[in-house]
């Protein structure tokens, strides 16, 4: 269970990105901020990555900002280390910041459990959607419920998302053992 409930205020963070810049959630005070706990190695993330890029491209002009955060233990999952994050961001032409949560504090504060796991905040920094990107990780052409896109349409239109919460589907976040 996430620590944040629908309607709760966002928890700010400042993390280093693959662009070597520090990024804070408060840097994105526009219409909507989409925080996605993500990573490199998880096949569910890899299945959804192109859709994340497409969503950012489609909604950028509406004041929507995606922010991806990798909190995984890179010692046991070296594919998730910062150098490999930089390579992935370049290879996939990420159009959003990809941040490293080295001490896993942000994931713990949010109560995130999976990758990908989405938290959408409105212009008042209130949580309006939490869960999965859509209902089909395996086949983008077979998606029936576009949870994230529907939530963004609602928030941008100043209404409530039709489905405010879904079960995140993906790999578990890889916690450090200490």
């Amino acid at each position, binding site marked *: 269970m996430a620590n944040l409930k629908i309607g709760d205020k966002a928890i700010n963070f400042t993390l280093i990105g693959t662009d070597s810049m520090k990024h804070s959630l408060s840097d994105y005070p526009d219409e909507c901020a989409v925080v996605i706990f993500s990573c490199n*190695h*998880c*096949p*569910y993330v*890899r*299945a959804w990555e192109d859709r994340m890029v497409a969503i950012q491209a489609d909604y950028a002009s509406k004041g929507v900002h995606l922010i991806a955060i990798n909190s995984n233990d890179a010692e*046991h*999952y070296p594919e998730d280390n910062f150098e490999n994050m930089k390579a992935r961001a370049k290879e996939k032409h990420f159009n959003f910041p990809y941040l490293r949560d080295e001490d896993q504090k942000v994931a713990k504060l949010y109560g995130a459990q999976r990758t990908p796991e989405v938290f959408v905040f409105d212009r008042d920094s209130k949580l309006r959607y939490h869960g999965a990107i859509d209902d089909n*990780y395996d086949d983008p052409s077979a998606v029936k419920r576009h949870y994230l896109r529907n939530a963004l349409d609602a928030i941008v239109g100043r209404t409530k998302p039709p489905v405010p919460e879904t079960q995140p589907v993906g*790999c578990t976040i890889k916690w450090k053992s200490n």
Partner: protein
Amino acid sequence: MGVRLETGKRRVTFLYWDECQSHDEALARLRKVLSEDRIDAQVEVVRVRSDEEANRLQFTGSPTILVDGRDIQATNTTHYGLSCRAYQLEDGRISPLPSEAMIRSALKRES
């Protein structure tokens, strides 16, 4: 591993780690292909519970399907452990699920 049963049945080993949510669907997909193609197979379902077991079984991620001991999608990784498996599909996409075509092709291969 790598030996056909005397009965002529294919020996299918389905290995999974229960934290990867695609394993139920992958097993259903395997059983569907076996049923549709009327393939006589002995399916062993193995739950991998620890990194030690993963190392012993040379488990590269969940789900893994072996047909007569041979992985349905060859991988050259030697990183064994509890993780989710990434399959490269026929169109180049990555998925946590093997495609039906991939399973079917492996079952039709000679061991």
